[in-house]
């Protein structure tokens, strides 16, 4: 499986080959033009510059050793922030490098006007609507659509899945991706993107974080952080005035230290790392989100539209029972069904054979000599065998009745309808069997609901997410499967238009909807949905319409995608809360240290019992700096996410990050103070 292979490839967060380049990048990111994107860290850097200058030219009576340490830790605070971002980007960069290597070697056989001769040109020269020839062993040079031919294609470069997939002209499997390799046959591909806009380009940009734009929620959070910074700037800037009333003054370095500890440096330093890591988690999960906005939207989803087949039920139905009409022996029905299915290699056909042989002991029966096999076609919707003058058919009930016009009016037909209704009500799909136009009964094909899906839906319900099953089945069958699987609602006999209408209706009521789809006719719904996950095996239109692409083409993943979106938002919220809660302890460390010379009584506010004013200030600033790298693993991995309702989730996170954020710095600053004292640093 692609997913497990990816997981085993996942590197530990802190291997040397990731950390070493990140350290270099951390310094490179000190470039003010880049730093200004993060106003809180920019402020920190400005203060660090200011104090560095004051260290050289100023004289405020503080010991030089103390001031040097202060400046050092201020710079480290900034560097820890840029390092966190560099580390988060680094993980994507390695992946991007290998993708880029693939891209570099792409050449195209561009067909000339006559349609037979071609030029070999670099892939970068291909334009939209060029036709290229791709032969066995060639890499597909550009995203496109197969216009002629059918080929098996290895898409491991993109999906990590080594089993080849079939790509053919027309239908829902016509899309091909640049960088994948044709391993048999040849196809002609119409280029559908201009250079630099292909899937591979997008993927490179995405994993590298190069084109990363701040998401709406990140922008809002940044505004909050800027606001808090301004508030604390006011709080600190007015202190000299107050101190002068008290007949004293406070050195600039100390004010600077107070400012930097109060402004939300922790969350500001980790904010972009959290965003990059969130996207990265999706990529590792083999899902490409086209924007960070889509990932955030995933966390907000209220309604999940899930395709029945493959998501709720295992893809294939299984025969579980033979239901003869009255007057027909069940053995006779089983035998006819068996013969009709012997040449049927579909899983359903095989399951009929197994059922007939094992349950009804028809082990000896084999396909008669010279039997004519009638394959299933979409037009007739019937398959079967013509043997020795007998016509044995199986197929959809309506199709069988239509193929045997004489049988429609018989009592057997009425009987058959009753039987098939029963099967439908029980959540099965009936398959009628007829021999020479005589209706024998129906095969009960049962949808097998996936193990554990009921619990998953329970979890989603607890999270406030409603699940809607989308199926082409009739309402009876759909209701029965819905009941069995525990899905909240279903849309039966769904057409793409129904799907689109359902999404619109939910959205009008203010709900956010996620769905997945693969066909061209899914495209409008995919585009309308707030989170539209296109299957990678799907058509180009579907892949364009969705805002995510699942490279494994596994519709079940929609549930996990929602989880990843929530985890991203939770990580951001948890670290923001932690950062804000930290301020209480920092005040209690610095205020007594700052004012004790003015009013000795204020020493009682030194609740942590820090050894000296200088040590208190140093400890606060050291804590403030060190907490950033300590939280980097949390920022990159994300907070632990378990599906549960918002109430318990909030209680848990508030206890861990809110209360923890209040208490942790008291402990941390005290410990650092002991170390500072022990080492004689202040």
């Amino acid at each position, binding site marked *: 499986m692609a997913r497990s292979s990816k997981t085993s490839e996942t590197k530990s967060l802190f291997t040397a080959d990731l950390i070493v380049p990140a350290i270099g990048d951390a310094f490179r990111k000190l470039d003010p033009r880049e730093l200004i994107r993060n106003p809180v860290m920019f402020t920190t850097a400005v203060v660090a510059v200011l104090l560095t200058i004051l260290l050289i030219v100023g004289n405020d009576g503080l010991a030089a050793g103390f001031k040097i340490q202060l400046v050092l830790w201020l710079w480290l605070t900034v560097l820890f922030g840029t390092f966190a971002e560099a580390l988060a980007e680094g993980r994507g960069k390695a992946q991007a490098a290998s993708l880029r290597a693939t891209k570099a070697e792409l050449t195209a056989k561009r067909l000339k006007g006559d349609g037979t001769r071609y030029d070999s040109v670099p892939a970068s020269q291909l334009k939209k609507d060029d036709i290229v020839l791709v032969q066995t062993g060639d890499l597909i040079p550009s995203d496109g659509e197969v216009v002629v031919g059918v080929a098996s294609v290895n898409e491991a470069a993109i999906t990590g899945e080594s089993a080849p997939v079939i790509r053919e002209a027309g239908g829902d499997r016509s899309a091909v991706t640049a960088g994948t390799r044709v391993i048999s046959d040849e196809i002609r591909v119409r280029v559908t993107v201009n250079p630099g806009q292909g899937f591979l380009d997008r993927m490179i940009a995405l994993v590298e974080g190069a084109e990363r734009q701040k998401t*709406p*929620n990140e*922008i*809002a*959070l940044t*505004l*909050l952080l*800027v*606001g808090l910074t*301004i*508030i*604390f700037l*006011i*709080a600190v*800037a*007015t*202190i000299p*005035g*107050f*101190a*002068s*009333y*008290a007949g004293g003054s406070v050195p600039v370095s100390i004010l600077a230290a107070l400012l930097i500890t109060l402004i939300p440096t922790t969350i500001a330093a980790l904010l972009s790392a959290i965003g990059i890591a969130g996207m990265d988690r999706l990529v590792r999960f083999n899902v490409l989100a086209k924007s960070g906005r889509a990932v955030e939207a995933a*966390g907000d989803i*209220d309604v999940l539209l899930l395709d029945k087949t493959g998501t709720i039920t295992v893809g294939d139905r299984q025969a579980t029972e033979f239901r003869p009409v009255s007057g027909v022996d069940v053995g006779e029905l089983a035998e006819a069904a068996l013969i009709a299915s012997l040449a049927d290699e579909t899983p359903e056909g095989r399951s009929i054979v197994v059922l007939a042989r094992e349950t009804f002991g028809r082990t000896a029966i084999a396909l008669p000599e010279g039997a004519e096999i009638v394959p299933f076609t979409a037009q007739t919707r019937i398959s079967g065998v013509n043997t020795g003058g007998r016509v044995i058919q199986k197929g959809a009930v309506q199709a069988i009745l239509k193929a045997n016009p004489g049988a429609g009016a018989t009592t057997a037909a009425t009987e058959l309808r009753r039987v098939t209704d029963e099967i439908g009500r029980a959540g099965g799909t009936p398959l009628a069997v007829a021999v020479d136009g005589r209706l024998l009964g129906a095969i009960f094909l049962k949808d097998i609901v996936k193990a554990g899906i009921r619990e998953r839906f329970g979890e989603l*319900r*607890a*999270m*406030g*997410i*409603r699940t809607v099953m989308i199926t082409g089945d009739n309402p009876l069958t759909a209701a029965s499967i819905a009941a069995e699987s525990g899905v909240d609602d279903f849309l039966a006999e769904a057409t793409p238009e129904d799907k689109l209408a359902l999404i619109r209706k939910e959205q009008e*009521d*203010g*709900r956010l909807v996620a769905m997945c789809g693969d066909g061209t006719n899914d495209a409008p719904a995919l585009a309308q949905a707030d989170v539209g996950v296109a299957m990678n095996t799907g058509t180009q239109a579907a892949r364009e319409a969705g805002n995510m692409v699942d490279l494994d083409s596994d519709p079940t993943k929609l549930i996990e995608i929602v989880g990843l*979106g*929530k985890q991203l*938002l*939770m990580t951001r*919220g*948890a670290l*923001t*809360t932690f950062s*804000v809660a930290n*301020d209480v302890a920092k*005040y209690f460390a610095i*205020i*007594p240290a700052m*004012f004790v010379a003015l*009013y000795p*009584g*204020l020493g009682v*506010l030194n609740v942590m019992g820090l050894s000296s004013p200088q040590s208190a200030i140093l400890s606060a600033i050291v804590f403030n700096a060190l907490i950033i790298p300590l939280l980097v693993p949390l920022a990159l991995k994300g907070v632990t*996410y378990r599906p549960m*309702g*918002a*109430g318990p*989730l*909030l*209680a848990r*996170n508030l206890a861990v990050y809110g209360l923890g954020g209040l208490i942790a710095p008291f402990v941390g600053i005290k410990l650092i103070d002991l170390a500072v004292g022990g080492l004689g640093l202040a």
Partner: protein
Amino acid sequence: MTLQGWLLIAAFTGVLLALAKPMGLWLFALYEGRRTPLHRALGPVERGFYKLSGIDPDEDQSWRRYAVHMLVFNGTLLLLTYVLLRAQALLPLNPLGYGAISEHLAFNTAVSFTANTNWQSYGGESTMSNLSQMLALTIHNFLSAATGIALAFALFRGFARRSATGIGNFWADMTRVTLYLLLPVSIVYALFLIASGVPQTLAGSVDVSTIEGVKQTLALGPVASQEAIKMLGTNGGGFFNANSAHPFENPTALTNLVQMLSIFAIGVGLTYTFGKAVGNTRQGWAILAAMMILFLAGTTITYWQEAAGNPVLHALQVPGGNMEGKEVRFGIAASSLFSVVTTAASCGAVNAMHDSFTALGGMIPLFNMQLGEVVIGGVGAGIYGFLLFAILAVFVAGLMVGRTPEYVGKKIESREVKLAVLAIAVLPLIILGMSAIASVVQLGLAGPLNKGPHGFSEILYAFTSAVANNGSAFAGLSANTPFYNGMLGVAMWLGRFFIIIPMLAVAGSLAAKTYTPATAGSFPTTGPLWTGLLVGIVLIVGGLTFLPSLALGPIADHLAMIRGQLF
């Protein structure tokens, strides 16, 4: 602390909570523009007023239009008051023949009453004619209170409406609130006060002979009518300099209790109205619970500190609690409670001198105001200020449930965050900024009566009271100078309208949004967890900023007192 004291606090809290729902429902009817029992009598007045002034009460105003009309209205009233005060000497109803008010005092007073602050740099009975008291000042007591409530309605509509462009009609809100709530309640209230012994006359003063045979002049005037709305509208500007400590303003224990209740009555009612407006009264109760926690915590600290008294005096064989600056009629519990109530709400009426409280006892009133008057708060202003904090609380912690933050069905996005932060930042910026200036320049340093941290507290208190639109004074500060009148006037104006404008913008932005129905995955904004979170955010975001200033003021003062040093 005494059992009697605690019983008073408990009784006050009980009656207050019982008031929330009926008051809230009444306000909700006005919010919705529904008929009330008073419409039979007053409906024609309302309609006649609209007809006369050419107002279409059904015109739905965008937030910008609402804001412009509100500003023009308040600006005009400001100007009118300024002119009236300046021309006092030329106008009638001036039995004691007071002269014109100076420019800076008239400016300060006009702003003060327009901004629902009622900071008084003057002694009422020795400065203002009856006409000035009634027309120039009392009119604001009604209209600035009505403005506050109207603005709260506008914000409620922002939360309650879906994909709407308007947030209501300023004139209709003003008219309904004044006509169906403030006026009728004030009339009944004034009658009650008159029955309790509060004067209501156009006579200037009366000469009496005291028991000792000394002749004394007692100032009189239309006190009861001003007193009622002074409390109900959280205005706080006293007729007399001594405010509600004066026996003619607050004659009995009963009037004292009723005055305290009336300060909070509309404020608590509005929390219920908010719940009704957004379709879930538990939302309102959660907010009220958070406010009450902050209020009762403050009351406990102040009462405890005042009852504990001053160790320096204890050492001098003067036992007991701190009675300095308190009315013997009311005692420690009622004075402590009053001080917390009047500063929690932006009333500013006082029945004791906050300056004479113990350092920490007096810090609570100061801190209440620094939180932005959101603990119940001024009428309307309290709830809209608190809702701005709620927006921030939802934003900070809401992400922790894994959804983009939403509050009562409205998504909180960058615009709301930006505006809420802007509004909340106004408070520390002006309070701390102006206090710092006054602590440095000579004109400022000339103000405080006391030295050391206590003197600093006096400056800090004045600017805090002005910006928070409270209006209570720490006394001790000589504020009737061009410097302080000017600075405080500007502070009051900014503190009122620089919060209102972003707040209205939030209302407009929210109203335009669609509604997101709550699910099991939505951030829960009812229940104890949310209430606790609100308290935490108000304290951390609203309060922590002021910690350095408090450390250098009341906290240093307190710690010095423990060591036997007084200022």
